């Protein structure tokens, strides 16, 4: 358990360093690191601190948010197929950004896009509270998530449908694909606070999630306040996932795949899975972003596309594995 956490932390740290040392073509240049650290005003330092550091930091934040939110939601819903997108925050953040695009705010000031995304995520959280917050029922939460997801997806399609020019539509679509490229430290700063708040809310739900293994009645008899737990996880996932989606676009499957892969290694306990999932998510996001840089030719391969390409076959394998477990 502790070995697993330490190994994942080391992996995330190593990939973070590798991300700093890797250029757009996928070439590792340690010389740049040395140059940047010896001369703070050099072009090397500019590349390191203004281009590569935000990219690596965002990779860390995206992965940790998706991994932790995925693990917490799977524990809350007691379903290995749950993922952060389920509560509709991802789709709503995307919608918020698309609206900022659509009405030209994005052209007017630089951070309209992430600001729009965060507004979308917040509205989604409020909507879910309005729909499901009053009852402690997990079913209502899932239904509310599906509803918010559908509304956000429909409105995003509408924005694409009515886009003023093909160019605008293409730009919206491209942004939706999700990427860590060309983000600045301002993007990091913008997302940092909600991400930390969200991760903080999620990090200490472990015991309650462990108790929930035995069902809602037993968890309540063990002193767990289910309503509070649900509220914490919705708010925590919403803040963290909404914030990262707002600055990098949609990056799927990390929140589904990582907890699922690590669950057997963490002894199946949902509480023991939280920290490893955050670290594992960070490692996976950084690794995927490194591969994206390695594989990109003239056209940038988007991180969101890449994780989906990796994640979909994994999902298929999951289906087959669960079928095998259920017997012929």
């Amino acid at each position, binding site marked *: 358990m502790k070995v697993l956490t330490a190994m994942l932390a080391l992996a995330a740290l190593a990939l973070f360093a590798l991300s700093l040392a890797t250029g757009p073509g996928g070439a590792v240049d340690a010389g740049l690191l040395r140059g940047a650290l010896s001369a703070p005003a050099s072009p090397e330092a500019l590349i390191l601190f203004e281009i590569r550091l935000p990219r690596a930091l965002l990779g860390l934040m995206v992965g940790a948010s998706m991994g932790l939110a995925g693990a917490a939601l799977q524990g809350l819903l007691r379903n290995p197929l749950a993922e952060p997108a389920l509560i509709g925050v991802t789709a709503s953040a995307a919608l918020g950004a698309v609206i900022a695009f659509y009405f030209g705010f994005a052209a007017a000031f630089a951070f309209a896009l992430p600001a729009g995304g965060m507004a979308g995520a917040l509205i989604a959280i409020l909507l879910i509270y309005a729909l499901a917050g009053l009852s402690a029922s997990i079913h209502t939460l899932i239904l509310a998530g599906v509803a918010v997801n559908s509304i956000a997806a429909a409105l995003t399609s509408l924005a694409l449908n009515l886009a003023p020019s093909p160019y605008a539509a293409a730009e919206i679509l491209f942004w939706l694909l999700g990427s860590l490229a060309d983000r600045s430290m301002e993007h990091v700063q913008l997302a940092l606070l909600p991400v930390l708040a969200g991760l903080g809310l999620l990090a200490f739900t472990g*015991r309650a999630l462990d108790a929930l293994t035995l*069902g809602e*009645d037993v968890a309540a*008899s063990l*002193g767990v306040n289910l309503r509070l737990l649900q509220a914490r996880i919705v708010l925590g996932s919403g803040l963290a996932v909404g914030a990262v989606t707002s600055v990098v676009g949609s990056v799927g499957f990390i929140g589904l795949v990582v907890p699922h892969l690590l669950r057997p290694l963490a002894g*199946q*306990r*949902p509480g023991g899975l939280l920290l490893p999932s955050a670290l594992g998510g960070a490692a996976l996001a950084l690794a995927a972003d490194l591969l994206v840089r390695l594989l990109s030719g003239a056209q940038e391969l988007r991180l969101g596309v890449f994780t989906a390409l990796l994640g979909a076959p994994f999902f298929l394998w999951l289906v087959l594995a669960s079928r095998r477990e259920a017997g012929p």
Partner: protein
Amino acid sequence: MIAARSLSLRRGARLVVQEASLALLAGEVLALVGPNGAGKSTLLRGLAGLMRPHAGSVEWEGGPLARLGARTRARLIGYLPQQPQSHWPICVRDLVALGRLPHRATFAGESAADREAIERALDEADLKHLAGRRVDGLSAGERARAMIGRMLASEPRLLLADEPVAALDPYHQIETMEILRNRARAGAGVIVVLHDLGLAARFADRVALMREGRIAALGPPALVLDASAIANAFRVEAAMIAVEGALIPVPWRRIAERRS
């Protein structure tokens, strides 16, 4: 220790328990019996503090149960639902250890007292040899015992068990009843829902017979579980068999439906 005062409980719009009153003493085993749908499980949930009373109240040592904090209540009252399940295939020891959650300080790991209680529970529920096994690989009976172990590990002052012997073979049925009996002898209160009238007659100090949401009779087994009461409540004829000086009811044949 715990008492229901004219307690009424609702499930949806239906009144499932109506004006139930009972009081349990420390060291006592009370069996809740009655036909399906009589409201036994709902009453047990009400006593566990998991439902808000529609009318009446539940009291813990004279004060309202609802006024106890969730954590205090969790330490005092252990609750074992009917057909308990584990949503993740954790190992038996981890499952039993969940019973210690209300005792553990925030952020603290397992204390020596926690570990002792877990070992005791594993031992009492005959789980030692299964401690490292995953619950999804256990038989139904082994899983049921693991769940009992989880409740024992909490070392509650009141144990509420909903059909804890339903999945068990005769050996482990008797063993489970002996575990509950022993906990009562050590000073705990026990309320257990049973369908086996023989076990109720043998192991309970008092029996509460429920019918259509009401407690129809409450008293020593010999008084409550006589042939006519069983015929009225369960619509079966029971043979009364004398074993070691006690009369044990054995349901024998259905009483034909009266048609008017």
